[in-house]
């Protein structure tokens, strides 16, 4: 089945083609980014979420080329389901060494959920106890932006947001992704 091929690809790329660093460096760096944003925006967590999403979007625009290069993908996925499988089994695997589960497909096949049983960014993290953070801040919101940016570069416009997060006291960390539309190729400007 194509998904096990994807898993094997992800595993192989992770083992052989990715340079690795200590996870704690990455986690601590991400923590300092979020902390800095909270400080800059004066604990306006809605704004922090937006900023994280924007930063993630910028990362996604770059990361897609890296992903395509590392996974030696020559062609686009043929449908959204395949895209979801590749994201979960190859994309997340080669960058974060995790494989979220793809579930909760809607009947029209345009929406699915990613369930993270481990989120490396949230290691050692506890949200501030100011009564608002747990209701307003999505700590790992950068991942939503990354997916949005990366998929836009392969001509899919998607919307991604978290619906639950262990840091907020929920039982799982779940992200919901919706395909809005496929983007057409840009045409060159008309000559005189």
């Amino acid at each position, binding site marked *: 089945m194509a998904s096990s091929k994807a898993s094997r690809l992800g595993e192989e790329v992770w083992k052989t083609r990715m340079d690795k660093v200590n996870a704690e460096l990455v986690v601590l760096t991400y923590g300092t980014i979020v902390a800095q944003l909270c400080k800059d925006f004066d604990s306006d967590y809605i704004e922090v979420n937006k900023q994280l999403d924007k930063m993630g979007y910028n990362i996604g625009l*770059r990361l897609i*080329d*890296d992903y*395509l290069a590392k996974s030696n993908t020559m*062609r686009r996925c043929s449908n959204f389901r395949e895209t979801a499988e590749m994201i979960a089994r190859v994309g997340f695997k080669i960058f974060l060494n995790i494989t979220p589960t793809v579930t909760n497909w809607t009947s029209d096949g345009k929406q699915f959920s990613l369930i993270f049983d481990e989120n490396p960014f949230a290691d050692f993290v506890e949200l501030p106890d100011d009564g608002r953070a747990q209701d307003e801040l999505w700590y790992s919101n950068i991942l939503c932006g990354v997916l949005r940016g990366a998929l836009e570069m392969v001509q899919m416009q998607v919307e991604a947001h978290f619906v639950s997060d262990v840091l907020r006291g929920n039982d799982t960390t779940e992200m919901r992704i919706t395909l809005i539309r496929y983007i057409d190729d840009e045409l*060159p400007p008309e000559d005189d």
Partner: protein
Amino acid sequence: MVVYSFYIFDRHTECIYSKSWLSPAPTSSSSTTTTTTPSGPTSDTHPPLPSSTTTAAPTAAAGTTGRRSAPTTSASSAADNDAKLIFGTVFSLRNMVRKLGGEDDAFVSYRTAHYKLHYYETASNLRLVMLTDTATLSMRNVLHQIYINLWVEYVVKNPLSPVEHKGGAGVRNELFELGLEQFIRGLM
């Protein structure tokens, strides 16, 4: 194998990078509207100067392209136009190929009497075009290597280069140029 020139077009159909090593043999009058390479340095072998489409190229060598005008100040705009022509050609060919051969089919290269043009498009709509002599076989692998070893490493991963390379910003950095030069020289 001789490489004449190399272009990169982004997904907004803009030329964000171009470099020539040599112009192909000057075309006799039969040059049609399909392009030849832009005016680069004249046929001296070394050192090549990249003909930049973004800044006014100091190389004012007269163009041997199909366009006649070329007062020296418009050497760079001639190069600009060449890049646009190349892109237009390539884009139309690619669309036609997809229409005729189905979505999975891909335009790979075309050959004229004087040069061969190789095309490689990534899934992220980055387009690499290379002009070589007619004897060269497929450069698809070469273009793929340039993409993964040079583009991704030195442009994509460089935090100080912008994400959208409008007008070529951020592409022309030292590491990328050096790497490209070494890579191509190693092939020639």
